[in-house]
């Protein structure tokens, strides 16, 4: 099948880039990233600079791949990372515009690669448990009701890809931050530092220059791990509690 691509090309951070058109002959069975590999082989053969894009596992678990296809982060399929998207999803002769995530907090490094260090810094601010919890303990030491364990597990499935930020008209990082906060704040080991964590992670999120959530829900629509807006409601709730406690001078 033949695909017309318009790919964002940008030499380095701060440069003004542009969309460049390419035609690629590919197979319906190849993944989107393999199709880009084919394009790159063509470019290298012609002595041109290959298109840079992030990828690692190519099986939907690492969160590295990060392409917006025709305006939709991770492409048209729900609950699918772009590495798991296959060309059979498209038709012969389709034109696909491929762009990097767009956010002040995610500067473009080169072509389709963006720097998602802002997410790492949000995690560093509180997305962990301070004490060493040791190796796996006997299963019934910390009784956790199944629905709560499931809720925490669902939140924990966020792979930190940043599609939520990319899709949000406000470039808000609420879905990511809220997934991390909800995961930890729901479980006994994480509850100990609930308030401190919530305040610190939100402060860091704001300082990184992400926008404010206005409850559009676009993030939930594109999230490859189907993280729900529920977690944002929990973050809003936990933050209100933490902020009030802090204001009143309670120990947190």
């Amino acid at each position, binding site marked *: 099948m033949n695909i017309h691509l*318009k790919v*964002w090309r940008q030499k380095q951070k701060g440069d003004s880039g542009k*969309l460049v058109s390419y035609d690629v002959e590919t197979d319906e069975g190849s993944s989107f990233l393999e199709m880009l590999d084919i394009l790159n082989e063509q470019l290298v053969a012609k002595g041109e600079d290959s298109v840079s894009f992030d990828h690692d596992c190519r099986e939907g678990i690492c969160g590295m791949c990060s392409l*917006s296809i*025709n*305006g*939709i982060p991770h492409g048209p399929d729900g609950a699918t990372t772009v590495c798991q998207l296959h060309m059979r999803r498209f038709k012969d002769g389709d034109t696909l*515009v491929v*762009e990097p995530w*767009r*956010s*002040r*907090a995610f500067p473009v490094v080169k072509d389709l690669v963006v720097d998602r260090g802002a997410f790492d810094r949000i995690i560093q601010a509180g997305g962990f448990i301070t004490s060493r919890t040791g190796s796996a303990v006997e299963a019934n030491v910390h009784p956790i009701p199944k629905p709560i364990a499931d809720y925490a597990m669902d939140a924990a499935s966020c792979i930190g890809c940043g599609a939520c930020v990319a*899709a949000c*008209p*406000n*470039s*808000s990082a609420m879905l990511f931050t809220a997934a991390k906060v909800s995961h930890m704040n729901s479980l006994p080991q994480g509850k100990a530092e609930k308030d401190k964590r919530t305040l610190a992670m*939100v*402060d860091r*999120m*704001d300082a990184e*220059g*992400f*926008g*404010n*959530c*206005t*409850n*559009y*829900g*676009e993030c*939930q*629509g*594109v999230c490859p791990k189907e993280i*729900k*807006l*529920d977690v*944002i*409601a*929990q*973050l*809003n*709730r*936990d*933050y*209100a509690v933490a*902020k009030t406690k802090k204001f009143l001078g309670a120990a947190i």
Partner: protein
Amino acid sequence: MSSLVKKYIMAISGFVLSAFVFVHMIGNLQVFMPPSAINDYAYFLHHMLPWEVLWGFRFTLLAAVVLHVWTAIQLKIENAAARPQSYQVNASVVATPAARYMAFSGMIMLAFIVFHILHYTVRSTHPEFKMFMTMNDDGEKMFDAYAMMIYGFSSEFWYVSAFYIISMASLALHLSHGVSSMFQSLGLRNELWRYRLNAFAAFYGIVLFIGFSSIPAAVLISEKTGVQLLQTKPVLEGVKSWDKKSPIITNYENCLSCCPSSGKVTK
């Protein structure tokens, strides 16, 4: 101020305003009762309620509008700055038009609020407004809010009625997102209640639209057709024969036969 605190301000001020508009609508719908109903209600608000209460309400509403608009502007500026370079191709997956046009519907409403206060609260748009008088049950002269509403929406000022109806459509659109969104902003929503509140918000918006818009619509219908929903005739005749100095006193049909509950007749 953190992004979440701004959302709390939006939600709480939005809640105050959303609750107010509903009560306000119920108050206004008394126009469909005999004229004395809404006039007595207006008299109650302005003369019988302690002024501290009236001004307490007014101050709360003003504070809510100022905080709401001010925070909305800040959110918009920050959100625009968060994406300095936009996409070449934009697509929307789930966001509703109501959500995407919050600032637009809000701006129409802001213009509306300013005009509405000058129109019916300050009454500076028509010299007639301050002159409308009627007799209450005890034979005392009092302000005739009923006549003011009729004249304000009469066909001579069709563009005013049109602006009111457009603004109420904006209100409905705004609230069809806002009334559910405010629960999310305060952390009082989950997957189950998201669907329920979204449905409620749409319903709330439609009720407000119908309730408010029915008044200018009823004035025009009563004036132009045989369907007499409101007593437009005596009001408009009174205005026509006004001498530009003395109060315009309208004598309404008492309509004892149709609504016995209106009870007392003017002496």
